[in-house]
């Protein structure tokens, strides 16, 4: 042992080149470990193999976390992977990998490995940084890759002065030593390279520890101890039991979020934890006074900002600030960020127009977005769920060329779902304002059976008053059997008036056909009429029958339309206006496809009160500044390691030939920059050649 130590010290002193491989140094430093087992363990933990393995394992684990979307609702995973794999993945904590026990353990392992590595190398690096290594043997200098010998006539002092000045010019600092008449000058440059090692590895430890301190590790520990339990039910914050609550001074670091409607105040945030949440109480009250959002011409959000006030619960101190994305409010060690926006419970004034056969039901009420309401229909109760209100909808303008505007705002929309008693739902999107299509105005309503489908749109024409009254009056008349009997008889008489030979039975027959066709049309649109013809008429006659049936259908529908106009009090005289004629066409077209719209009622938004909510992220990260300090160390360290070349030059001046001449030995090494050093050495040799006239 003693001998080994002795040997290694000599090795280190006579080392021709600073050691590049770790093994030698490890062996040399291993004397630090006092017991055999400890030594083995330490050298294992500090070994490069362990470090590289950890790099790879952490890398692979991280990759898994990017492929498998993290922190989704558990149901999403069950649907995706099935119950079996869901259980497997859940027990491996794959849905929240980065705060899983095993991932934190891996990072901890990396931390220990880096620490041991520093423990091993730091003394060596510090020594390398400070020492000049004066006691290097002549033999080892001669063995160096860059090494040359001159025989000179100048005195030792003269030669030394010359060399020292040149070395200083080259940026080298040096020390000298006279021993047994031999002068040794040891020079070094860029020794700070050795500090780079300490900076980088120390930085990693500092960053990891600070980040760990900012993570939710303490919450996991408390959960394990049974002091905390994430809430998984959909509860109001005030109803969440205390086992899922954290007091204002109960948690040194967190990242929570909350959506706050305009004009309201909160003193909590929600912390997401796997499939549940915790309520984090804050030591201040946060009030949102106003939320504003601006859009680009394309409708994309340009900026959103919130006017907030925070009030310290203890001191009562108030701070007002407008925050927006990239401009958070920093208060004590809390930070409040503008994260998102949402509907804050806009109030919709709705009118329900029944679309069911035989029903003329109309209902009027106010409802808040995000809430649902039961509505009676012929098929029983259905739920009307208001999903989303959008104050504007910008779409590419189809008339961009003519108008010069690339985009067009289609106005506000309401998205809602109608859910039947069996739980099946269809989604609808209704425009609040009528939209122009080919010069006429329509109310648009989209429908789809699942969110993955595109919407199919129904166009309901508006009357001269921009209302839906005429459309629904027409429908309601079609639904009124008694009135329809009267109208069909009247129409049949009118249409057969010219033909005097015809008998009254024929009029009766015609009226029945008209009534039946109108009824078919009312139930299922044009499709229903065609289906009826296909079922009853042999193929060869179908074409002629279809033509005459549609003629008859339009006659009766036309009369119904005129009746509706008369009810409205329109003086139709002999002729209706072209606009009224056009309305009839649109009306019949819409009615004809209404069966595909598949809704028990139409929802008209009469007016609305828009309320917005601002999404905040509130965080407390006391380790942040230390992380940044670590980052600065890391950058300094990397620059030192890669851009400061550590070089050493030794000069040995030995009197020869009885002191008449001197032997000048110059040798050096460039560590990781041997090529560059070789050029430098050549440059120095050239100067020495010139000075000492190539005596050798």
């Amino acid at each position, binding site marked *: 042992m003693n001998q080994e130590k002795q040997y290694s010290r000599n090795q280190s002193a006579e080392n021709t080149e600073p050691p*590049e*491989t*770790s093994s030698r140094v490890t062996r040399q430093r291993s004397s630090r470990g006092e017991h055999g087992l400890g030594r083995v363990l330490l050298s294992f933990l500090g070994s*490069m193999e362990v*470090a*590289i393995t950890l*790099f*790879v394992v952490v*890398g692979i684990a*991280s*990759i898994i*976390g*990017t492929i498998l*979307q*993290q922190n989704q609702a558990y149901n999403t995973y069950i649907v995706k992977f099935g119950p079996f794999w869901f259980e497997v993945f859940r027990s491996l904590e794959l849905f929240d*990998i*980065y705060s899983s026990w095993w991932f934190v353990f891996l990072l901890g392992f990396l931390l220990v490995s880096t620490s041991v590595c520093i423990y091993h190398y730091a003394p060596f690096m510090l020594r390398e940084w400070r020492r000049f290594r004066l006691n290097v043997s002549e033999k080892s200098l001669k063995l160096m890759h860059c090494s040359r010998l001159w025989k000179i006539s100048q005195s030792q002092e003269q030669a030394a002065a010359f060399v020292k000045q*040149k*070395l200083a*010019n*080259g*940026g080298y600092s040096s020390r000298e030593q006279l021993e047994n008449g031999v002068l040794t000058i040891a020079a070094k440059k860029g020794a700070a390279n050795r500090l780079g090692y300490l900076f980088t590895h120390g930085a990693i430890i500092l960053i990891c520890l600070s*980040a760990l301190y900012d993570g939710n590790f303490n919450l996991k520990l408390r959960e394990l101890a049974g002091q905390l339990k994430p809430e998984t039910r959909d509860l109001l914050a005030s109803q969440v039991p205390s086992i899922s609550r954290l007091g204002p001074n109960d948690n040194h670091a967190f*990242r929570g979020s909350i959506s706050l409607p305009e004009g309201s105040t909160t003193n909590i945030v929600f912390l997401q934890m796997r499939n549940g949440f915790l309520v984090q109480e804050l030591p201040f009250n946060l009030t949102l006074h106003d939320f504003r959002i601006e859009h*680009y*011409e*394309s409708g*994309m*959000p*340009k*900026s*959103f900002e919130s006017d907030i006030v925070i009030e310290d619960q203890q001191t009562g101190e108030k701070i007002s600030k407008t925050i927006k*994305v*990239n401009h*958070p409010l920093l208060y004590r060690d809390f*930070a409040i*960020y503008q*994260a998102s926006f949402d509907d804050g419970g806009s109030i919709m004034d709705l009118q329900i127009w029944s679309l069911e056969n035989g029903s003329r039901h109309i209902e009027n009420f106010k409802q808040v977005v995000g809430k649902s309401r039961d509505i009676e229909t012929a098929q029983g109760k259905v739920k009307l769920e208001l999903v989303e209100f959008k104050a504007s909808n910008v779409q590419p303008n189809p008339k961009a060329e003519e108008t010069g505007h690339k985009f067009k705002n289609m106005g506000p929309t309401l998205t809602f779902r109608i859910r039947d008693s069996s739980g099946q739902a269809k989604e609808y999107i209704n425009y609040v304002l009528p939209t122009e299509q080919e010069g006429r105005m329509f109310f648009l309503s989209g429908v789809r059976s699942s969110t993955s489908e595109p919407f199919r749109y129904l166009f309901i024409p508006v009357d001269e008053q921009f209302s839906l009254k005429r459309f629904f009056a027409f429908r309601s008349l079609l639904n009124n059997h008694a009135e329809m009997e009267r109208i069909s008889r009247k129409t049949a008489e009118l249409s057969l008036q010219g033909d005097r030979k015809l008998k009254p039975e024929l009029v009766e027959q015609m009226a029945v056909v008209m009534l039946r066709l109108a009824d078919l049309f009312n139930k299922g649109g044009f499709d229903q009429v065609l289906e009826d013809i296909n079922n009853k008429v042999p193929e060869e006659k179908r074409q002629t029958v279809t033509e005459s049936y549609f003629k008859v259908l339009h006659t009766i529908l036309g009369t119904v339309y005129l009746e509706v106009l008369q009810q409205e009090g329109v003086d139709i005289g002999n002729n209706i206006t072209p606009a009224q004629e056009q309305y009839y066409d649109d009306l019949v077209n819409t009615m004809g496809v209404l069966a595909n719209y598949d809704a028990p009622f139409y929802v008209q938004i009469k007016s609305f009160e828009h309320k917005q909510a601002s999404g905040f*992220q*509130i*965080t407390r*990260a006391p380790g*942040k500044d230390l*992380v940044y300090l670590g*980052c600065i160390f*890391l*950058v300094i360290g*990397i*620059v030192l*390691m*890669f*851009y400061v070349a550590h070089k050493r030059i030794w000069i040995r001046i030995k009197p020869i030939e009885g002191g008449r001449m001197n032997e000048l030995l110059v040798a050096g090494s460039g560590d990781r920059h041997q*090529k560059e050093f070789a*050029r*430098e050495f*050549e*440059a*120095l040799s*050239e*100067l020495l050649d010139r000075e000492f006239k190539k005596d050798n």
Partner: protein
Amino acid sequence: MSTTTSEMQNMFEKQSFWRSLSLFDWVWAAAVLLGCGYAWNQYSAHMDNYEAGILLGTGLSIIAWGWLWKPVRAYSIAVALLSLFAISLYGNNLALGESNFFLKFLISSKSAIMWMSALYVLATVAYFIGLVTGSEFTNKTASAMTWSATVMGLVGLLVRWRESYLIHVDVGHIPVSNLYEVFILFSIITALLYLYYEGKSRTYNMGGFVLLVISSAVAFLLWYGFGSRGASEIQPLVPALQSYWMKIHVPANFVGYGAFALAAMLGVAYLIKDSMLKRGSDGPIIRRLPDLDVVDDVMYKSIALGFAFFTLATILGAMWAAEAWGGYWSWDPKETWALIVWLNYAAWLHLRLTKGWRGRPLAWWAVIGLFVTLFAFIGVNMFLSGLHSYGEL
């Protein structure tokens, strides 16, 4: 070896760095400062303190860059003159881009990028012809084309910057916000890194290999930017990107990506030469490729440079994330992949520096590293969703 020493200043003869600067160096530095002063004078009302800092920092960095690598001076002058010419032609009328001859065919952003694309592809071909024939003239032509392409690329970006403000002052932003723009940046930076090593090592024969990766980037750029996706249109910024951080985070990242790409292509050249030598073939082409240990050394230097910039960029990104998203680290896919790339090259450097690995295994690793980097760079945007979902495919 003696030629190299006599050519370079003998570092042991006392001469300060400042005295080694020529008159041109000083005139050029003054021009850079004047430019910064003009920009400050024109736009300081719209800049916050950070942006003022970035302007000053950029000016000083360009000066330092030009003093340490002399061709930068001519390069920056060419870029500045062409860009200013284009901007002055535009005036305040963006529509001139379609009617003015110079803009339409030469230096509107789109035309400049087209020129860049064409020149890079031609340069790639020329470098390979130079490698096969050994013709010095062809090599010099290839090098000149690469320089010209790099000029046009930067002109394209700078003019695009101006064009974005001409669309609307609200839309204006530095053109590093989507994949189309950053691919141009990537091409320019990779080319500049290569040109630096070309100048240092005075060998043209690596050019084809490096330009191959740039040509691939150009192919992607043309498909992505000018194909049916129309990504070359200037889009306004989402609120999260409206920050001075973008001006430093993105370019720093792309110095990293560019350096890693350069290292990977050197790795390819290394592997080709090495396997040919092992098979005993020693044709003129193989001989023209630089010595294996030279390639190995440049590969190391390139990865070290990339690693330094990538670390810096990731740190800047973390600081930006802390300001925009409420946390310096969120395990967002892009962040996570940045960590993976970082770990990958950290392992590479450890093996080289402490384990003394050299040659083939590290060359292979550098090549594989390019794929890891590429995934972090585009794969994440293509396949994974997250906070960094700008410029999706």
